[in-house]
């Protein structure tokens, strides 16, 4: 019975799709974070908690 269910669920393309989507997504985030001139805006952002008072 279990084997019969598994026969239909060897959907390895789903796993592969997930990994590909994640990899592309991750690569996109890294590219976004290290884009040109991003350093100055992050320098501003990281100061936000320190500017808001107590």
């Amino acid at each position, binding site marked *: *019975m*279990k084997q*019969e*269910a*598994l026969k*239909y*669920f*060897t*959907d*390895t393309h*789903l*796993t592969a*799709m*997930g*990994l590909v*989507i*994640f990899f592309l*997504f*991750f690569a996109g*985030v*890294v590219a*976004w*974070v*290290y*884009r*040109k*001139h*991003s350093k*100055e*805006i*992050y*320098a*501003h*952002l*990281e*100061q*936000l*908690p*320190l500017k*808001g*008072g*107590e």
Partner: protein
Amino acid sequence: MYKEGLQRTASSSLLEEIFYDDEIVKKFLLATMIWAGAAFLFGLIAALQLAYWPLNGNMEWITFGRLRPLHTNAAIFAFAGNAIFAGIYHSSQRLLKTRMFSDLLSKIHFWGWQLIILSAAITLPLGYSQSKEYAELEWPIDVAIAVVWVIFGINFFGTLKKRREKHMYVAIWFYIATIITVGVLHIVNSIEIPVTLFKSYPVYAGIQDALVQWWYGHNAVAFFLTTPFLGLMYYYIPKAANRPVYSYRLSIIHFWALVFIYIWAGPHHLLYTSLPEWAQTLGMIFSVMLWAPSWGGMINGLLTLKGSWHLLRTEPLIKFFVAALTFYGMSTFEGPLLSIKSISALGHYTDWIVGHVHAGALGWNGFLSFGMIYYLVPRLWNTELYSKKLLENHFWIGLVGVILYYISMVVAGITQGLMWLAVDGQGNLVYPDFIETVVRIIPLYWVRAIGGLLFVVGFILMCWNIFKTIQLAPKKVEQKPVVVERTGYGEIYNAAHRKLEGMGLTFSVLTFLAIAVGSFIEIYPTLSLHKYVEPNSFVEPYTPLELAGRDLYIKEGCYVCHSQQIRPIASEVLRYGPASTVAESMYDRPFQWGSKRTGPDLARLGKRYPNLWHYNHMVDPRAVTPKSIMPSYPWLVDKNTDFLVLRKKLSVMEQLGVPYAQDVIANADIHAQKQAQEIAADLEANGAPKGLAKKEIVALIAYLQALGQKGKN
């Protein structure tokens, strides 16, 4: 009183005077402490009950099976939940430079959440439970949770909309991910059909239910106990240390990686079950991948203190943050480790998992919350902390408590796991009697209780310290306005630079998509399982009396200590019988595969013992297993089974696809009473008291005797 004023400076930049709503923060903080006390106390009692069973007191309301879900709900939703809300309401106003969107929604959120907690505190001891891990509350409370969460969401996103700071600091990202994902998780996991006011059946069954529940359960840990606390960490550690976060770039990378990966990891709770192999592998791979973003967050938090470690001496509350991050790092190292299949074979169902979650809950969530409370209370009440010495004592006593708890449970878990797996050269179990594996770890249960007690002692010191701080604070201090300026809107950077950081809606949609991809790919195929598997051909549904017994099994929290899933591991098959199959649980709503074995697995229990054995086992477990630590359930012999509700129950089951004949549904109570008479007659013939046919114990015996007996093959 809180009208915002405008003024222009000499340089013509627009400055505004605003008042933050700190009253709501104070309310959530005090609620955090009150419910923390309740959660810790319930946990301590539960720990003592495991070490010394008479502390169950033969009282149904405090018996371990009912107390444990009360403890977990109190810890997660009452203690951690209120702490999260306190921190979010406090930090969001300051990061977004605006008062909350609506004071009314803030109040509804606060009081609504407290009412939900109160409802849980009443209904769980009464046995109203769905037995779904971290989602035990029955359907009316589920509806209330959804409503209050949406109100919180409207209030938060309304605040985001009217913000004066264009850029959204990373803490806000974590809050957004939390609000969206918890909403999705709760709603999808809670789809159920009501039977009565306090009884419902989930629309998912068996393997579907298992996957949905652990998709929810794991991500409740991820998006209720991790992402919001990371958001708080990104705000309060820089504030306490007065220096910016170590690497903002790292925070962005680890945020997206965490949000995307976490949602896939739920199946690691179902390794070696009848869940399809591909889904198990997926869960394992994504769990191992979680190492990187989790440690990214920990390293980022700890290195924020780089060059300022002297603050540990001068600002002792930072000790709590450092310890919290260390426990976060340990737990997020251990989690992926336990998700590796071969290690899961040893650790799953053991106390190692209990140690693992408590290192996270006490060390990470607890210590971070304590640090935040110590930071906030003096500021909110315009005073100084009453005693730094008490704070230090709290820290060290609490730390020793967590360490004792953790080490004792890991040792207990590995001991259990190795004893369960042990097979000798002839292929026989080395420890065939399950009770041997229980007795061996009782001393460690005492060590755990001592650890828990120390944690509570530390907490009491904090309560005293906070009480004195507030008591000695000035009584009437007029709230001062804060002068803020709209920033980030008129800046002319390269346009692409701040698009995402400044676009609340786009950001939220992207976050939703990040969690939706994994959820869909994982859950959809399992939900369509009926297309491939026809359980009617393989499995008989439960009889009406068995269904009544199953609901009693759930009500008494038997699932807390017993599993119904035999893993395809040699020692398990030797101990319990053939491994569980995907078909045989397809009528189980909810599934009962369990997550912890304090007692043995019950999947093949049916017909193994006579009815009288079960009767004695429930009334006095020591009568059949002398060293058992199981509570006694004397009230099952006194209380009557509700036969009349069975027609409705079967009708709902039939709506959900369970093949009950119309005749069986229409006469469910009669069928049940007939079967009950047969069991009662057998019990009486073997020496049990007369007149048990209407009693709950007979229904429960019917269910236990049906386990593993429903397969047609």
